[in-house]
């Protein structure tokens, strides 16, 4: 199996689907000639032509509106927001039209919205957010947040296949930093299925995206056996996998890079309290970013994004509880 970066895996999956299925096309700002802000679609326009790799005007509203119309007409658009933060401009088309369409009239809306998200490189308040919980709250939308190259490729293919709009949150911090073996052939990773990143018996960390690696590093510094559940999909999320792990360890830390209040961790914690109360040996803990915009200053951003030390402290308290 070849080794690929997280970014190459996304690119590879996308390219395979475009070769396989002529209905699949890419639209976004600078995705064509320039190859995308992060070069995910580098070389795509040469291979597939400017009709299937469309440089859109600087309007997320137009991109999302165009993708919705194309999906309704039977195509399979993969739209890119240059940064996940900009998806707010496309809110109306995405939330009012695309999310409701299948439920309202029954027509599939097979849109993939690629959303480079996350911070850790001083991108400031407009280029660093993790807005998955805002969209997980919208019935009709699916949200996936892969953490490994293998899952990134399998999930982008599943997202393209899916009849509903799927928001594909790709963490910018992982793009070139994370490498892994990725099967060359086409395969899918099911949406809504978690993956046990690391098995353990003393406490569970439920997380996704770049925080999987923060949890991994932290658990290696704690003198206890920590299970890491990588959700992979935030909506639908794998409740069963989480509850199974909770029943095993009885102690849970929910970790995410998004801000705390209204973050998806609250939903997970509430579900655990409702459905696994009698298996708990400690209160469910959350570690998340504080309720502020993402700061620009590197020192402040470090204080904002959950760090390995924060997780180590949280895990120690949880294990000792």
């Amino acid at each position, binding site marked *: 199996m070849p080794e690929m970066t997280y970014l190459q895996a996304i690119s590879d999956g996308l390219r395979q689907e475009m070769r396989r299925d002529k209905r699949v096309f890419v639209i976004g700002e600078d995705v064509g000639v320039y190859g995308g802000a992060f070069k995910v679609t580098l070389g795509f326009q040469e291979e597939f032509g400017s009709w299937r790799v469309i440089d859109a005007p600087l309007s997320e509203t137009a991109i999302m509106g165009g993708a919705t119309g194309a999906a309704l007409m039977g195509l399979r658009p993969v739209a890119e927001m240059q940064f996940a933060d900009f998806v707010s401009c496309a809110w109306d088309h995405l939330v009012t039209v695309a999310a409701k369409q299948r439920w309202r009239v029954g027509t599939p809306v097979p849109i993939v919205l690629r959303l480079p998200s996350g911070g850790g490189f001083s991108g400031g308040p407009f280029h660093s957010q993790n807005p998955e919980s805002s969209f997980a709250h919208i019935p009709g939308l699916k949200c996936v947040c892969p953490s490994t190259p293998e899952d990134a490729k399998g999930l982008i293919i599943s997202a393209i296949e899916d009849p509903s709009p799927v928001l594909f949150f790709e963490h910018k911090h992982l793009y070139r930093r994370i490498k892994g073996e990725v099967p060359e052939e086409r395969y899918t990773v099911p949406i809504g299925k978690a993956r046990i990143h690391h098995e353990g018996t003393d406490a569970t960390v439920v997380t996704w995206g770049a925080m999987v690696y923060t949890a991994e590093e932290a658990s290696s510094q704690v003198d206890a056996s920590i299970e890491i559940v990588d959700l992979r999909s935030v909506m639908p999320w794998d409740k069963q996998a989480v509850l199974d792990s909770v029943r095993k360890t*009885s102690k849970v830390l929910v970790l995410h890079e998004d801000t705390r209040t209204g973050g998806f961790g609250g939903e997970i914690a509430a579900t655990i309290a409702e459905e696994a*109360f*009698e*298996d*708990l*040996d*400690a209160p469910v803990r959350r570690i998340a970013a504080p309720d502020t915009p993402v700061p620009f200053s590197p020192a402040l951003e470090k204080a904002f994004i959950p760090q390995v030390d924060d997780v180590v402290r949280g895990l120690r308290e949880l294990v*000792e*509880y």
Partner: protein
Amino acid sequence: MATGTAVDVVMPQMGVSVSEGTITKWLKQAGDQVEADETLLEISTDKVDTEVPSPASGVVTEILVPEGQTVDVGTVLARIGGEAPAAETAAAAPAPPEPQGERPEPDAAPSEPAPAPAAPEPAPAAAQAAPTPAEPDDATTNGKAFVSPVVARIAGEHGVDPSKVPGTGTGGRVTKRDILAFIEGGEQTSITAREPAEAVAAPAPAAPPPPAAPPAPAAPVPAAAPTPATVAGQEQAAPGAGETLEPMSAMRRGIAEHMRRSLDTSAHVTSAIEVDMTNVVGVRGKVKREFEQAYGVNPTYLAFVARATVDTLRDYPYVNGELRDGQIVTRTYVNLGFAVELADGKGLIVPVVKNAETLNLLGMAKGIADIAARARNKQLLPDDVAGGTFTITNPGGYGTFHGTPVISQPQAAILGTYAIVKRPWVITDHDGTDSIAIRSMMNLTLTYDHRLIDGALAGRFLRDLRERLQTWGESDY
């Protein structure tokens, strides 16, 4: 916040003949918020296992009866709202755990078991880590006194008192790992140490109140049916070599009491008759496919027998009747009970198909399938087991050809159905010639209360029932 007046949660009446219930599980603990109609606890009676909804919204201020304990209907089990219990709580409780418990126990986890005569291995450590009841300050209560949900559950399942377990968590709290190690340690100790541990592990770990004289219920509680309280009591004899002791479930005690009482009440007599079921076998073979495909229900032989029984009962109202206070009760309806074995094989329940006289063969088959499925899955409601006027029991599934069932009180009779087997049988042609044919034969028994039903009446009932079954036509429903 506890506001307003306290509302009492009492052991509900789960059927006319139920006088007591066992608390199997508290879903809320003292201090928890509960909404009106939210399930507060689970109880087990000799009729059904069921959930009890909260009568009011508020904070559960007190839990007065721990899990595993059996109390009379109407006993106050918990209080909701009002002022939080003060120190006199323990004294005010109708069934106080242990009078010497100085400190009010805010948690409802199975607490205060009878002092184990010889605690297993970790006993010294336990004593060391035991809470000091003299210090009711915040730090202490927040540490050792708090029992986490999972620890409470494990403690309940294994009958372990968490306060006897050495705690290693925050403030000496007992962690899940602590209690699991404690239980494992107990089981690994030598045989001699094991016996007391098992005695503690009886399902009623809560210190049984001395079997206080129960307020004499209508039905006398037979001495032969020990309550879990006496099982868990210290005085209980240890099992002999090769024996094990197992507490009786509430249902088993209910069955024991009912069977004994029935034999003490009714004058049981059994009559049997042989029925040629060949016609029914043929008709069933013809309608089975249709019933299964169109209605998803299997027309069992039991449904045929039940259907014919209901028709026959119309002509014999005493068989569907009852002796009540020196008078004879007869009815214009039939509520037909069916004896059903539970899925775990540990008990029997008699759910009732109401107004069976209104059901045709299809309705009867569906009704029986429905109650039987719900009985096996423990989904019966109290109403489903109440109000029977006649009962059918079907031990024939195992091949038995005769039996003398016990009448379900206060009914007057019970029909037993047995295995259908092919036998050589003498039949008489229309021209009077006898010949031996292979026929599908079944025995039926009617066990009746001779106080009300005479042998001749029972005989005529069985004769007519046989006639209905033997002449069952294809168009009869």
